[in-house]
């Protein structure tokens, strides 16, 4: 983008909008940080400017880490999110590839069914799902959510990946077939590598959805030592009408760090995926 004019134009067209969006994006993190570092006396004092921090303390972090099983919840959350995302990406690819690349009767109907499955709300499903989990004897194990999260993540990943698979020219695959590659080899060696940004996008979204999921985790994981962060924090830091605001904000902030790290690692690939093919190489 070529920008003409002096510093005023640059300020108006670049720095001000950028500053606004930066503020908009980072404000929740700032609020979480400030709240988690305030002593209760300051949190409840309306005479003090709420955006400023006067007497910082790490008490809420110490209490969170010593009085609750937060580290264990974080480990559980990561394990569940990573494994269910991996399962969903594999199954989603297996579902999306034929729907996007192979013509067969009923493919449009199946593609529609995939989208419709994703749209079924969780509150309709959690009781029958809980019944299945209980009958399988999987209650209070991380396996229960690792198996149920793909029920929403697979349609989501498949739906997202279908778009990427469709964007790869058929000629590339046909050339591979002419060179002697089987259908599977053409997919494995030609199409899938070209869709890496799509996998990263789907993976990040699936990971975030799995990490934040609440309802299934609430129903299936009832013991403290198998809970995930969203359920553990709510169950143990909201007590009656008393909210442990400092610890809640500390948990929210610490819980958001893994996703921020993952985003920062993959952001280039992710953006590359979004803009693939927009300009001639």
């Amino acid at each position: 983008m070529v920008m003409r004019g002096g510093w005023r134009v640059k300020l108006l067209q670049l720095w001000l909008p950028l500053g606004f969006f930066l503020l908009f994006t980072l404000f929740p993190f700032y609020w979480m940080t400030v709240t988690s570092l305030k002593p209760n006396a300051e949190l409840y004092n309306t005479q003090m400017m709420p955006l400023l921090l006067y007497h910082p303390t790490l008490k809420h972090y110490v209490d969170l880490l010593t009085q609750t099983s937060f580290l264990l919840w974080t480990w559980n959350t990561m394990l569940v999110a990573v494994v269910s995302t991996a399962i969903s990406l594999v199954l989603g690819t297996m579902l999306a590839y034929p729907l996007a690349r192979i013509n067969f009767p009923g493919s449009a109907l199946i593609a529609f069914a995939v989208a419709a499955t994703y749209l079924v709300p969780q509150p309709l499903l959690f009781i029958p799902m809980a019944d299945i989990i209980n009958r399988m004897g999987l209650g209070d194990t991380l396996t229960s959510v690792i198996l149920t999260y793909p029920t929403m993540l697979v349609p989501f990943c498949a739906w997202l990946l279908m778009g990427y698979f469709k964007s790869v020219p058929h000629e590339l695959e046909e050339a591979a077939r002419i060179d002697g590659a089987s259908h599977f080899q053409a997919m494995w060696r030609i199409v899938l590598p070209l869709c890496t940004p799509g996998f990263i996008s789907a993976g990040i979204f699936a990971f975030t959805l799995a990490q934040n999921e609440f309802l299934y985790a609430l129903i299936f994981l009832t013991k403290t030592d198998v809970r995930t962060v969203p359920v553990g924090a709510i169950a143990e830091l909201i007590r009656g009408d008393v909210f442990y605001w400092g610890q809640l904000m500390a948990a929210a902030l610490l819980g958001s760090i893994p996703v921020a790290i993952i985003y920062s690692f993959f952001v280039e690939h992710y953006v590359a995926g979004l803009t693939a093919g927009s300009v001639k190489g």
Partner: protein
Amino acid sequence: MANRDMVGATSSRRDFLRVAAAGALGTVVGVPAARAAPTTLTFLHDSSFIRDFDAYFQNQLAPRYLKETGTKIDYELTSVGTLQTRVSAIIETGSGADVLLNNFNWPFLYDEKYVDVSDIAEEIGKAQGGWYDAAKEAVVVNGKWKAIPFGNIGQLMNYRIDWFHEVGYDKFPDTWEELLEAGIKLNEKGHPFGFELGHGFGDNHGWIYPLMWSFGAHEVEADGTTVVVDSDEMARAVDFARTFFQKTTLEDCLGWNDASNNKAYLSQQISCTNNAESILWVAKRDFPEIAAVTGQTLNPKGPTGKRFHILLPWSHSVFTGATDIAAAKEFLRWLMQPQQLEGWYASAESYYAPYLHGYDNAKFWTAEPRNLPYRESLATSHLPGWPAPVSRPQAEVIAKYVIIDMFAKACGGANTKEVMKTAQAQVKQIYGQPA
């Protein structure tokens, strides 16, 4: 259990799925636990805001029961806002916990899935001074005790003694009209009231229903069918609430939840609210200067000359799907013995007011004399929806906040007749009656 046996006999496909799932994931996240043996019982509870209360059960009562009987108690905690979701899932799926905690009218909603525990209730009542009538209102369904009442989380007036004194009140006003007068003076001094009118779970019902009853109004008659929202008494109650709100109360109360008034009181924004003992309890822990000038007292009387309070009962039920119903009942019987109860109640400093007269003069009541009104309030406490008997339509009226919203709309400025007409139509529709 018969169903489970049938399932077990014909479940090869399910067995395959279970083995496959466990095989695929077991090495990563552990093999799924087998169904609880009869020597383990799961006791589902709400996370008490008093951590010592839960700690007392986990560190004292559960080990004691294990030592005495060999039965392990898994004390499962969930937050108050998610408890009913957990209970519903357990009820619908047939497993998940053996002994469940109930709030409000749940023994009536789930009575078909709860074991009759009348024998335990009568035995406990006889041995410990008898039950308050309020206890029976909360758990006796069609003549059968479907839960053992544990304690009442009373909702009373919490107020700033020093600020009321500043405007000439040495004791809390006795009637709603007097409270309105005091509120106007306090508001002028920059100390408004703060009464929840949003979609919380207790503090909204905690003052709206008692206010309504004290004006002689209610939504359905005691016959359980005659809808009387649109009445002269209700009109007077709604008119009063509007004046009360507009002249004394913080405007954002319309969007409050149960935590909002605690926060507003502890941040010294409001001079009076309706709440459980939690405000004083947290003030004593974190804000001793506020605790020193905080009073707790009964709700004011209305034009009928009577005062009322909301009944917010905690009770325990044995689930019909329990792994061992006899063992679960035995645990409940053991839990309700004085050796266990006294210490457990005391760990919460009377926050859960016992429904047994045997505890009327217990030591924990004298630990904080300002809590005594919570004991007194039991005599005039009723479930939301009273005097109509608890029913599913009534529960729906409460769950949809029909009455709360009627008052909230009026407080927001809507016409009394209009809001009553709308609420009357909503209640009739829920009860399946023509408008």
